[in-house]
């Protein structure tokens, strides 16, 4: 079936079987391999992408259902080629990743959290990433990374010279 998808601000045409998940379509048809295939049945969260700004499991959505939504993958977050977003930068700095498998999903989830809540508590952060499994169990640094990114985003919005 032909489907018109809006991915990272671009309109892309794909021809997929109805059973093709959005995840497989992103990875195999659009070569956006930042969304990772983990459990493929909605438990691990590694395939998380943003659909109209909200984190969703791309393994639990068929590509044929995804037309008309604004889909954001990790590839859509960086400000330019070779550059990192503020949240990605914070993950690097606090060692918020180990093997990296859960990282794109963690960053997208953090992106959605901070878009709605510029000053999250530790509890808010833990709750937001509770649907994402890190098998290296590096959660402490991930939480730290999100808190650091939040702090930097808040200070970016303050006029220069204010404390």
């Amino acid at each position: 079936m032909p489907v018109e998808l809006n991915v990272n601000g671009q309109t892309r045409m794909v021809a997929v079987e109805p059973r093709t998940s959005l995840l497989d379509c992103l990875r195999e048809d659009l070569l956006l391999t930042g969304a990772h295939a983990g459990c493929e049945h909605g438990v691990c969260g590694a395939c998380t992408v943003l659909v109209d700004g909200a984190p969703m499991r791309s393994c639990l959505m068929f590509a044929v259902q995804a037309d008309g939504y604004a889909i954001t993958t990790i590839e859509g977050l960086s400000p330019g080629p070779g550059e990192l977003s503020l949240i990605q930068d914070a993950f690097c700095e606090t060692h918020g990743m180990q093997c990296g498998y859960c990282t794109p999903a963690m960053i997208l989830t953090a992106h959605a959290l901070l878009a709605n809540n510029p000053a999250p508590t530790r509890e808010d952060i833990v709750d937001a990433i509770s649907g994402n499994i890190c098998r290296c169990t590096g959660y402490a640094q991930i939480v730290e990374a999100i808190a650091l990114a939040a702090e930097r985003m808040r200070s970016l919005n303050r006029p220069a010279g204010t404390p």
Partner: protein
Amino acid sequence: MKPASFEYERPAHLDEACALLSAGDDVRIIAGGQTLVPLMAMRLARPKRLIDIARIPELSFVRDEGSAIVVGATTRQCVLEHDATVRAKVPLLAKVMPFVGHAPIRARGTVGGSLANADPAAEIALAAVTLAATLVYREGDTVAECAAADFFIGPMMTALPAAGCLTAVRFPVWPEARIGVGFHEVNARRSDFAFASAAAQIALDDAGLCRRVALGVGGITPVPLRLDAVADALVGSRAEEAIIRDAVRAALSDIEPLSDLHASADYRRRAAATLAVRAITDAYRAAEGAHAG
């Protein structure tokens, strides 16, 4: 973990969806897909054709009908979670919503989807049974209704006919002024499937005595259970802990709980009893703090 092949249809209206549903065997409805797609990925479900009702506008709404709040079947769980009318009029439903899956599941999952898939641990089903909600469905051109207590038959099994399409669920609004709710569950990881859960809604009279009590437990039996004997024992009391404990223990003594690798039958029974006491205690305290009018 790839589903078997299927045909995909996305009707624009409910009439069309019902016609497609009546037209063939092995046809299933999909909306959010948060329960069905995992089943398909594991090949526990292999429908020949999926009818996608997620974008039918007439099925997504929250409507205040005075004595009831009616929720459209494809209303997303995250919408219900943040709905001010639901919070004010059906507080128990609002209370359980944050426990339904993880946020990414609630962002896509629907209220009707959770009910129609009938997972024994599902919180929306527990709230529906506890509050004696009514499920509304269409079969062909006929509109029919079913009480929540009769709707759930077993794990992933409901009274919905094969060609039936759940369209809405009606949650009764309690008219009393002083209402409190409580909900507790135990699971391996935050927001995972509950091994045991308990939900309570209590209304008090002016003297602070229980005027009306609803209590339900989930996750321990194939379907959510409403424990009316406990509710009856508490009416007219101040929900003293000893009364609750005895009534809950008696009510749970003759049930046959589920048992699996993660939680034995015995553990589920004990956990449910403890959670029921906590849910009722929370509900009573919240009702005490609620201002009349």
